[in-house]
């Protein structure tokens, strides 16, 4: 298990001075995850908040080698880096142990980059892919994605006279990735940092592709004060909105079970993006959202052998 005392001694690969917003969940996730790697690492990033805020030419916030290619191809790009590494290693031109990781937001992962990711996973490259899921296209100003939950306001699912925000449920990306039957898949939270770092370590040191889906609260997009990022992460887990689990070589395991799951309204109320969904006339919508969370939880318990 990761120990705070040890983790705090490691030099951050993502240095301070980057231009992500105060309270951004993504930079916290990136630091926790990279602290789990004991070898030199090459980082790839999809176009998105993380990329634009850390590599504004002529500056870079990355102490490791870093590559950004485009929006939808972080997985294909890191697969090329890894393929070259394997090639040079086989030829004896390189002998160092190195690790490879790609980061993408939910836009670059759930949506535009899903094909590239699926291809790289199927091919079996030895790399880690991390989705920092902030539930909308935050970099371009809070547009809906297929990770945006039902009932949420975004600039492309605005709350209008007849439509109260996003009408569709979010996509179960972690389930889709698990269906690829890669060696390691996990869902994690920056609130449970020790769990996340342990999962990241497993992901780095599992041979073959590994995937982490990390909910990354976004003060700007979710409309909450920037000092409450970890609180949001915590509520998402305690309400079963964002369950923590892992799928290791096909075996599902639940990593956290709240003693008593909180009502979804506890998760929704502090977030301005749910303001319209919480109006009295949308009571049924909230009930349906709650039922969806509970149904998903029941299914997860069965998959994890808890029921």
């Amino acid at each position, binding site marked *: 298990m990761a120990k705070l005392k040890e983790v705090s001694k490691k030099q951050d690969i993502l240095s301070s001075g980057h231009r992500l917003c105060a309270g951004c969940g993504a930079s916290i996730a990136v630091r926790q995850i990279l602290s789990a790697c004991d070898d*030199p690492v*090459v980082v*790839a990033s999809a176009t998105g908040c993380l*990329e*634009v805020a850390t*590599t*504004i*030419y*002529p*500056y*870079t916030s*990355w*102490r*490791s*080698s*870093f*590559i*950004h*290619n*485009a929006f*939808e*191809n972080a997985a*294909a*790009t*890191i*697969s*090329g*880096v*890894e*393929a*070259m*590494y*394997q*090639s*040079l290693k*086989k*030829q004896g031109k*390189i002998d*160092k142990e*190195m690790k490879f990781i790609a980061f993408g937001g939910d836009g670059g992962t759930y949506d535009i980059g899903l*094909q*590239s990711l*699926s*291809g*790289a996973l*199927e*091919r079996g490259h030895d790399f880690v892919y991390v989705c920092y899921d902030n539930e909308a296209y935050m970099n371009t100003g809070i547009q809906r994605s297929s990770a945006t939950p039902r009932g949420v306001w975004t600039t492309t699912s605005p709350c209008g006279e007849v439509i109260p925000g996003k009408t569709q449920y979010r996509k179960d990306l972690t389930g889709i990735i698990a269906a690829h039957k890669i060696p390691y898949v996990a869902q994690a939270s920056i609130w449970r940092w020790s769990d996340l770092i342990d999962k990241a370590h497993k992901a780095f040191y599992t041979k073959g592709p590994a995937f982490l889906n990390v909910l990354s609260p976004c003060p700007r997009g979710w409309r909450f004060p920037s000092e409450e990022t970890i609180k949001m992460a915590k509520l998402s887990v305690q309400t079963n909105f964002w369950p923590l689990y892992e799928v290791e070589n096909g075996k599902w395991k639940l990593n956290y079970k709240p003693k008593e799951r909180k009502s979804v309204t506890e998760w929704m109320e502090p977030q301005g993006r749910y303001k319209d969904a919480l109006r009295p006339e949308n009571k049924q919508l909230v009930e349906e959202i709650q039922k969806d969370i509970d149904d998903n939880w029941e299914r997860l318990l069965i998959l994890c052998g808890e029921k």
Partner: protein
Amino acid sequence: MSKNTVAITGNDAAAYAIKQINPDVMAAYPITPQTALVQKFSEYVADGLVKTEFVTVESEHSAMSACVGAAAAGGRVMTATAANGLALMFEIVYIAASSKLPIVMPVVNRALSGPINIHCDHSDSMAARDSGWIQLYSENAQEAYDNTIQAIRIAENMKVRLPVMVMFDGFITSHGIEMVDFLDDEVVQNFVGDYQPNNPLLDPEKPLTYGPLDLYDYYFEHKRQQAEDIKNSKPIILDVAREFEKISGRPYGLFESYQLEDAETAIVALSSTAGTAKEVVDEMRAKGKRVGLLKPRVFRPFPYQEIAKALSHLKAVAILDRSDSFGAFGGPLFTEIRSAMMEFGKIPENIDIIYGLGGRDINEQDIEGVYNQLDAIAKSGKVKERIQYLGVRE
């Protein structure tokens, strides 16, 4: 006939060149009419004849994306595509060039959709002409083989470090069987040499960032450098050609002149059509007609001074475009050459012949007709129609 002369398709010849080059990484997706090239290379991989890490991607977009990652990592990288495949990878084609990654990519020319069509024209590579890649066009399987090998040296030259596309005509060259003279493996290996990494990602001692956000304070300077870099590749392309001639006996330049020096009229044509035109030139020369041909090889960087000079003595010239540029004043080859000819005071009369779209055949009679038209223009000094479509029902 040398022991290395074989009857082979253009695709197999290019695949054989890639086998001999033996790149560190190849990431490719099959697409008609390039498919046989990727299949052949897959056999080399399956038989353990190459050291290449072969990345069998799920799309051309990922092919070029993986090539960018692999080349930035620090090794020799190749791919191959055609038409819609090139269109799908388009975004990353630009990124490869601006990142100065020496990727080499045969492009088997095929018409872009739509409507969907699988046969030859040059709309695919012409659409990529502003992407910052060096472009070499090949007349036949031999040139496809030779250009692929030379492309490695051009791309990886430390003064260049740019990606190179090697074009040859879909089906006509890719599937037609021709005699090709192969070099020995070690001759090719010695010619291409060891890959020299330049700012590799795989050096933990020297971490660096590829692909940063480049805004209005630096982007323009970087694009200006790119313009300079591709311009400066011209003498390197010629140096590589001279060296290649030493090992192969086959001369290459920026373009090929065929019976051009004393010609009164001439055609400019890319790739396989130039081969057909040579036959016509021979037949017409036998009848005493002073006709010639210019076959561009290097389209990017465009050797505008050299081409304009080579055409300047003509009375009339027809530029054959196997792609259209809708709404423009002629096809891409025509607009470039006509513009280039402005460099010299006396401009030959000129017409644009757009032909062969979607694999529409062009035969010797068609080309003879163009020469006859040029003859009439030379005599009358009058052009009835500047931009013409040849071989289309109207």
